[in-house]
Structures are given as C-alpha cells and as structure tokens.
C-alpha cells in the first residue's frame, strides 16, 4: 500500500531509527531539567560522545564498547558543567553554551586522524525470521539494540520519576530546592547525578550517529541535533513518554520530507525543509494553549536556578 508513492511501513521503520539520537539525548536532559538544571550543552556532550564512541569502537573492534565509550565520554564532559554550576555556582545558561563551544572544539581536535575510517558495524537485533514479517517486521523487529534500549529507557524513566523514591527526590529538588534541602536531601549531589546521567545519555545518542546512523566520524557530525533534543524536552513537558512522541514526530517529519522529495512530490523543497520545525512549534502551541488555566508552564519551578546551602 502506498500513498504519494511512499511506503508507510518503511517510513515508520526509518523514522524510529532516525529519532534515536534525539530520543536518548532528550531523555537524559529531561531528567537533568526535572532536577532543576538547564543544561544547554547537549550538543557539546553529544558530539564528544560521537567521537569517543567512534574511537573506542574502532580501537576495540566492538561497537557495544563504543556505545559504552560514548556514554562515558559524554558523562566526563558533563562533569565540567556539574563542577561549574554546582560548585562554582555559575549561571547555567552561559555554562551550557560554553560547554557546547568547548565540546565542538575538543571533538574536532581529538578527531583529527579519524576521518574516513569505517567503524565496526552493528547489526539487527532480532533474527531475520521476525524482521521479515510483513508490516510489524520492519517496524518492530527490524532495528538494532540501541533503538530498543531507547524505548526501554523511556519506560524506565517514566516509572522511576513517577513511582520511586529516587524519582520523587529528583522532582522535589527540581520543584523546590530549598524545601528539599530542609528535608535533608543533598541538592547539589542529586543534581550532579542527574547531570552525569544526562551526559551519558547524550553521549550515547551522539555515538549512535557516528556508529550506526551515518556511520563515520567527521567534524561537526551531529550538526545541531543536540539543540533539537533540547527543544523536544520542552515540547514534551518534561514527561518521558511525550519525549518519545516528540522525537518520533520530529524524526518522522524530517524523514518524510526527504522521502517526498525522492518520490518526486510537487511540494516545494524549501517548505518541506522548514516543515519539521514549524510543525513542532504548532503542536507545542496547541499543547500549551490547553493549559492556560495554570499559573505557569509545566517547567520544574527551580529550573535554571543554582542552589547554595546557606546553612
């Protein structure tokens, strides 16, 4: 079944895969922002993870270790952010931007000499018997393990934030860090943990780009996808399931517009290339318009504010 010459099964399968970097990074940042920290350095952490993952995968020959390496590298870079905002109480917006700048430069510097190398390939997770089933085969079973990891993380984070003590502490720290401190929770330590988690997820998302999606290492390979991830976090009202929808929506429109071009559609290319961004804005407006009754947006109340224990 086609419409406009495009096969929806292949389209959906492709968009799920292309949304993975955004999904992973956005999930990590969701946790970070829930704890009250706004880390605009996602792009920097992603690209550093892309390089780190690539280098480890090439050196060890194992793509899995590559992903671990990407996560570790992203987390390491996020420690700089954590130190500056939690210990030195620097402004979070400025620090995040500085992190991106530094990450872009560091990855470019570190990546010299790794251009044009092919990384070890990551295969399909499920056997062909399942992946070849009609319709549900490519959509559900035809992906690599990172895709399933991403969806599993969505479910895990949703459950953690909603029902566990850890999640409650994170949310408390994000909504009112003074109260959380009064209750005896170590605000800065909780935030540190969340920041490192966010860095690891962003690093993994970046590694996905350099190890599976493209796959290669080149300067600037992530090309702004970290900013999209930040936007998706806000779009999703800081809720994990909505992050999944946002990532799929954005990835889907991006993939759709390319497929429309390839199918020879008559919609002008320029409008197609703007479509993902415009549609994201429109959907967000529609979603936030419904919440006009509340006194503010759904953002964690202490988002962006540093905490310093005065006692």
């Amino acid at each position, binding site marked *: 079944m086609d419409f406009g010459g495009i096969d929806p099964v292949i389209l959906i399968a492709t968009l799920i895969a292309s949304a993975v970097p955004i999904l992973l990074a956005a999930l990590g940042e969701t946790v970070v922002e829930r704890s009250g920290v706004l880390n605009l350095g996602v792009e920097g952490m992603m690209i550093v993870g892309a390089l780190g993952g690539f280098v480890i995968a090439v050196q060890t020959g194992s793509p899995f270790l590559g992903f671990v390496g990407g996560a570790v590298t992203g987390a390491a870079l996020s420690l700089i952010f954590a130190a500056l905002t939690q210990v030195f109480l620097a*402004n979070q*917006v*400025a620090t995040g931007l500085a992190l991106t700048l530094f990450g872009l430069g*560091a990855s470019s510097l570190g990546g010299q000499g790794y251009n044009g190398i092919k990384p070890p390939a990551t295969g399909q997770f499920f056997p062909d018997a399942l992946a070849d089933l009609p319709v549900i085969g490519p959509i559900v079973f035809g992906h690599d393990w990172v895709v399933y990891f991403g969806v599993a993380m969505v479910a895990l984070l949703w459950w953690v934030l909603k029902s566990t003590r850890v999640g409650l502490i994170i949310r408390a720290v994000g909504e009112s860090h003074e109260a959380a401190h009064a209750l005896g929770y170590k605000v800065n330590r909780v935030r540190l943990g969340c920041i490192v988690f966010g860095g690891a997820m962003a690093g993994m998302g970046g590694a996905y780009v350099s190890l599976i999606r493209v796959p290669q290492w080149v300067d600037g390979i992530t090309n702004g996808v970290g900013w999209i991830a930040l936007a998706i976090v*806000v779009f999703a009202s800081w809720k994990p399931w909505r992050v999944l929808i946002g990532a799929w929506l954005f990835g889907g429109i991006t993939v759709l517009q390319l497929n429309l071009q390839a199918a020879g559609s008559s919609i002008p290319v320029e409008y197609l290339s703007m479509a993902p961004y415009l549609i994201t804005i429109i959907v967000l407006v529609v979603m936030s318009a419904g919440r006009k009754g509340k006194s503010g947006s759904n953002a964690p109340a202490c988002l962006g504010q540093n905490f310093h224990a005065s006692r």
Partner: protein
Amino acid sequence: MLRLEKRPTPSQFWLYATPVVAVLLTMIVGGMLFAAMGKDPFAVIRTIFWDPLFGGMSGYLRGQLIVKAGPLILIAIGLALGFRAGIWNIGAEGQYIMGAISGAAVGLYFHSMEGFWIFPLMVLAGALGGWAWGMIPALLKTKFNTNEILVSLMLVYVAESILAMAATGFLRDPDGMGFPGSKNFRNYPSAHNADLIAGSGLHWGGLAALIGAMIVAAILLWHVLGFQIRLAGQAPRAARFHGVNPSKLVVLCMGISGGLAGLAGVFEVTGPAAQITINFNVGYGFTAIIVAFLGRLNPIGIVLAGFLMALTYVGGEMASTQLGLPTAAVQVFQGMLLFFLLAVDVLTNYRVRVGSGAVKVGG
C-alpha cells in the same frame, strides 16, 4: 574542608579582577595545551592576545576587532534586558537573519535609485524584520503560554531555510549567472554600510552598538522599565505586586532584543558581509548570548566582553594561519576562557571559608 559563604554585597575588587584572573588562567592552561600539540605556547598566546592589538598587522586588525565586536555587542545588550527579566531569547540568530533579509530586500528593491533616504529605510526595515521575528515567540508565550526557548530556537532553523530561499530565489542576483547570492551592496553607495572612517572597521553597526549600549545602560539605571526588568528577574512575586505586567515585559524584551538583532543583521549584510548568501550568518546570535553573560548582563560589561571575544576570534584566526594551529584548538581555547571566567566569577558573590560552618549550639 572548603566551603562557600555568600557575601552580603558583591566584592568590588573581584568584580574587576575576575576577568583578569580568568584570562591569565586560560593562558596558562591553554599554553600547556598548545605545548602538548607541539606549538610554542608563548608564540600562540602572543599571536592571539597581543598581535591583533599591537603587532605587525594591528593597524588593520584593530578595525577588524570593531567589525567582529559590533554585532556581538548590539545583539547582546538586547538579550541582556530579557535575560535579566528571566525571558530567554535563544533565537537571536534567527532575528538577525530576518533583519538582514528585510533590510536587504528593501535595499535591493531600490537598487537602481540613489538617495540618502535609502539606507535609513533599509535599517528601519531590518529592525522591523528582527522585531517581528522576535514577536512570534513573544506572542505565543503571552497568548498561549508557549515556552519561548523552544519557539525562538526552532525559528532559527526556519529563518535559515528562508535565507536559503532568499539567496537562491527571491533575492538572487539576476546577473549572477544562476549562482546563489544577492547583488553585492558595495556596488550601491546608497545602500552600502561603509566604514565611517575608511579602513577603521567602524561602520554604522559598530556605532549603533556603542550608542545602544549607552542607551540600554541608561534604561536599566534610570528608566522605570529598567527597574521593572530588574525586579521581575530577582523577585517575580514582588514585581507582580508592584504592578509589573509580565506579558508586557515579555513583549517589550523580546521586541527590543529582536529589533536589535535585526539591526545587527542589516548592518552586517550591507557592510562587512556585503551580500545575502546562504550562510552569511556565522553564529553571532548564539555567541552574543555568551557575551551577554560574560558582561554580567550589564551594557558596559558587554562592550568589554564583546571586544574580548572578538580578540579571541581574530587572534585565533591569525594563530591558525600563521602558526598552523588547527582552528579547533582555538575553539577549545575559547571554551576554556569561558569556563574559567564562569568559575572565577563565583568569588564576586561568595567568599571561600575553611571549616564546616556548622552553627555552634549552646556555649
């Protein structure tokens, strides 16, 4: 064990010493990085910081500092107003592009004519273009409560698409052999934003930046709007009790920062960049955010921060060309400078104390 204790009032000494200390720390650590890469650290540091100001080509390069710093300052002072009030305009890059397109479109429409009125009209169009682009997130926030960070950021990508359309389509030079890019403004004296003093690098944009900084400083210090902005940022509830209308503030701050970014755009595209091309925008809108914070959201500080950033760009480029330093190393260096500035800045508001600070009870 070391801990931080908030100062009752910010330390005047550290307010001025912080940037100096940060620059020195960056030079040391950066120098170590350059040495590790096999370059002479003193030569690199000198090329970045000293040569553009006092070295062989400084006659030319000092002007280039103004060229680079002008748009950064102009955009940053507008952003600072919003940031102080907690209004996060992350889309200045998009407003910059739209201002450039609007101003250029007006200029190209009248390109066959001459007249002193053409340039002011273009500047006005540019400011309006940027203002309008900034109004979109503002109105969406006031009417629908939509987060302005997301909207303004997405609009940057939309603006870049429109820029590509302009360069390959509606603003393309018909005599340009089919290549993308508008007519070059250098050929149209009425529309060209030339250096006010030839070769000095000071064009209308640079002048606007300096005048703008003074005006914004005046607003912040003496005008009621400035008071409202500062209040809204530091004590939102008190601001509401005082009668500050948050919607009005959002519209004003986004509008002003959008308009200033649009101004920077039109000055840049009619001056140093000289034509609309697919990627004439080099990220000033984002760098300006960093400049705004480096300047501590204060117009005078922003002027200094703008020049410091410009110095690292111009000097870094020189180091790249002449010493073979990879451009990436310069970016790392800039990132480090920012990190150190942000880290050392803590001493302005906090004191370092030894001990656990526990309150002694009894006795």
